């Protein structure tokens, strides 16, 4: 991608993938991808090949998040080059296979765009996850999607934090896009959540089609929520959780959390308050899968990113 002042030339996005089942119990993506593997008509667009793909079939079979290790943390350089074949944890083997098919990560042969479909138990609504503030193609796509579904809301979470950023399945692609829709319990398929995800993908593919046909997208401002820090549950000396997300915070993803606001409620009824220095915007509040990752929620701050004008090369 080359940038000239406030404008960028991006190669056509000819190869796109839609990943479902990266976590085997996040049912919207599993269901959508299975549907499209059977009949891909809905995801066809001119000038682009879109491949639906179940990334973690064994976890999908068991309806569990993963078998040996979290696939969505497995795409590290060490894992991708690890020798050992069948002795490697299942998800590391899968990561290497996915990197072969859709990567190699970081190379010119990698897929142009990968959409990775996820659900969360948090009340996040529709969220697009961005891994780089300099990916103008993705920023323009997200701007397009937000406008297309208005007045319904779709927020953008930017995780560029050097320590908290992780090696996702989608990171094999040149333009990785995470799609997180909640709240939905693990293992459950809710019709409204399923349809919301489906609509977002429709607009995303429409954008790619328009772009490939030569449409130019002028500069625009995109509001994002940038990940600041991870907040764990209060724990005792043995590492056991001793408090729950406070009822005032539960389900309040994206709403301002001010210093002094209730944050946790201990099992015997005491309130623990947020002690930060300023207002933050919490999200991923009470995500089931994050209890074991020591995360009750993440804090973010609001930013307006400027996306350069883009057009195809």
């Amino acid at each position: 991608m080359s940038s000239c002042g406030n404008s960028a030339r991006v190669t056509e996005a000819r190869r796109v993938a839609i990943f479902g089942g990266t976590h085997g119990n996040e049912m919207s993506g599993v269901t959508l991808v299975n549907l499209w593997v059977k009949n891909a008509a809905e995801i066809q667009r001119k000038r682009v090949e879109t491949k639906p793909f179940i990334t973690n079939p064994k976890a999908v079979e068991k309806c569990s998040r993963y078998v040996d290790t979290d696939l969505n943390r497995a795409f590290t350089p060490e894992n991708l080059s690890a020798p050992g074949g069948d002795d490697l944890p299942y998800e590391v083997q899968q990561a290497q296979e996915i990197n072969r098919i859709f990567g190699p990560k970081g190379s010119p042969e990698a897929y142009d765009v990968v959409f990775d479909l996820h659900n969360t138990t948090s009340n996040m609504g529709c969220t697009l996850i961005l891994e780089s503030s300099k990916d103008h193609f993705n920023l323009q796509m997200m701007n397009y999607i937000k406008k297309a579904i208005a007045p319904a809301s779709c927020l953008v979470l930017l995780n560029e934090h050097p320590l908290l950023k992780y090696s996702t399945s989608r990171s094999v692609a040149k333009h990785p896009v995470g799609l997180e829709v909640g709240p939905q319990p693990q293992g459950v398929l809710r019709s409204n959540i399923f349809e919301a995800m489906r609509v977002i993908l429709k607009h995303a593919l429409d954008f790619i089609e328009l772009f490939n046909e030569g449409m130019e997208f002028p500069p625009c401002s995109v509001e994002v929520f940038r990940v600041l820090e991870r907040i764990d549950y209060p724990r005792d000396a043995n590492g056991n959780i001793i408090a729950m997300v406070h009822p005032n915070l539960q389900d309040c993803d994206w709403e301002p959390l001010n210093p002094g606001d209730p944050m946790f409620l201990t099992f015997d009824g005491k309130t623990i308050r947020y002690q930060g220095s300023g207002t933050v915007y919490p999200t991923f509040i009470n995500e089931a899968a994050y209890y074991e990752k020591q995360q009750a929620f993440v804090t973010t701050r609001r930013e307006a990113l400027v996306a350069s004008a883009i057009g195809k090369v």
Partner: protein
Amino acid sequence: MEVDEVVCLPRLSRVAVCGGTHGNELSGVYLVRELLKVKKGVMEKEEEQEEEEPLSVLKVLSNPRAMQQCRRYVDTDLNRCFTHATLNGLTSGTVPYEMIRSRELNAMLGPKGRSGAVDLVCDLHNTTANMGLCLIAYSDCDWICLHIFRHLQRKMPDIPMRYIHFEVSNKESYSLDSVGKHGFAMEIGPQPHGVVRSNVYTAMKAGVQHMLDWVCFFNSGTLFEGESVDVFTMIKHIDYPRDSETRNITAAVHPHLQDRDFCPLHPEDPLFQTFSGETLRYKGNEPLYPFFINECAYYEKGIALSLARKRRVVIPTIRVQTEQEQAAHVQELASEEEE
């Protein structure tokens, strides 16, 4: 039965509160862990009280291995392992972990069907369905369970509460709560599995406390007036439409039905929405009450929702037996067991 007849029942000396029967239903897991921390006092009657003996409350974490992995079960659903056949039958080959565990729990809290069993089992559960607080029992004429339900309703008026009756004979009863002389599951939702929601935890904590308070009132001689109670009796389950080859589901619970547990479902009301947008409708010939709508754990059991009939049950006035009445009752039971 006369409405003003008083039914006298044996005192409830031993109560079991069980959590983690499904290892990922976290309100019960955390609540029982907390109860296990409390040494004395809050939950147990102190010795200075007037009654003859303190109430003994056993706190049990039913499925520790599943809890440790935050899964419903390890080998097989523990809450289906309490039939007489499973508890007492011969086993060969590798025995599933949960079968070993059900026998341990039966030894601890039972034996099921015998005079040594605990008086009351309260088994704590969560559901992804929007069911509020439900007591689920095998009987619609266990006056202890029904009076406890009414007590909870009076004490917790802001929580939607229902009594669900599964018409299963004692011989076929399969769940942990069937081990005690009286028992029920306390099921609270909606809560995703693997998550503890503070409002659900708080409701469960209050429910357990009010239940134990009731037992103490009962044991100390309080008269509980008869009245009528709405009981939901399970009639049937409905499965998702499935692909004939893969058995994968081909539709989701319809948005108009999702979260509408206990709202009457009439013939021709929407049930499912296929992935191609078609509405599938309820084809029964009577209105029924749906519950366990879209419970995660039931996909593998072939249940999208369950349906119940609602009816009013008249419950009598009850009180605890006096010592003489108790002695006569024990005598009667002993001769029954000999037969």
